[in-house]
């Protein structure tokens, strides 16, 4: 089965104004079937209004080394964190 069907990553937009979020993956032979399966697997309970499916092999991923370097890099730049002023109450959730 896995030899013949591609792996697809599924992204779902839960409502307008939010971005698509990765929810999981599925197997499917082509993009139409991938969309169908994604719908049935991940949006059965009104989870979304839009679905993206992307062949997993087309995704370029970072390695864990890349990430730890990037994090280390920002550790000494505390001014990048907006933590030096009080947020007015009226702003609500930040």
């Amino acid at each position, binding site marked *: 089965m896995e030899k013949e069907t591609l792996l697809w990553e599924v992204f779902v937009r839960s409502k307008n104004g939010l971005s698509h979020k990765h929810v999981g993956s599925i197997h499917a032979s082509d993009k139409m079937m991938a969309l169908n399966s994604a719908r*049935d697997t991940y949006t*059965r309970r009104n989870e979304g209004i839009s679905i993206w499916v992307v062949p997993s092999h087309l995704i370029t991923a970072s390695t864990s080394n890349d990430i730890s370097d990037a994090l280390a890099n920002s550790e000494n730049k505390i001014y990048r964190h907006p933590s030096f002023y009080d947020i007015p109450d009226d702003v609500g959730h930040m």
Partner: protein
Amino acid sequence: MSDHLFSSILELADDHLILGHRLSEWCGHAPTLEEDLSLPNLGLDLLGVATSLYSFASKLDSKCRSDDQLAFGRLEREYKSCLLMEKPNEHFGYTMLKQLYFSTFMEMFWENSLHSKYEDIAAVASKSVKEIAYHIRHSGEWVIRLGDGTKESRNKMLEAIYELHPYTDELFHMSKCSKQCLRDGYLPDRSKLRSSWITRIESIFEEATLPFPTISYFHAGGRDGIHTESMGHLISEMQYLQRAYPGQKW
């Protein structure tokens, strides 16, 4: 008004319950995990429609049976579903073809029920039209891929057509009660949907490179309660809980 409307709604409800039950049998048995979610999911859509229809029927029933009693408390001969619904699942392609036949019919049936004079029917129609469009897409895409797939998948689809197509004509039959409902403006004329159904199935078969068969003899009888040998087995499993624990609620 209530007798023929009751009987006609029951025909429609039984179609949905029996086919929905067949789909539920795939749970845990489908060829892929994705389909294992999809098939019972399609089945749940059909059970949802059946639930609404049985509750309408229950209100019209001269014997005052509840919707559960109607669904699970009748004898085999009292079920008026088309024979197509009770045909066993066999293999995946077979199930997809059966689903395509039924969904294509029901989409037209519901489209023609949107302005039913019986408001409850119009309400179910407008909800079902959206669901059924997806059922057609799902089953149709599979029929196309299996028909135009490998030698084995194609042979299985040819076998499914040979086996199932003779059961399709019953969908278009007008029972006595449904004729009365047509005159009253409650339900559409099934027989008028035949040519459009053929055109739609033909176009999917063409894409699937499958031949549209010529059938010399069509099977029928479900609307009169005359079922095939698989119906009794289906019912014994479907009714088990209500037979063992009458009136049990969940």
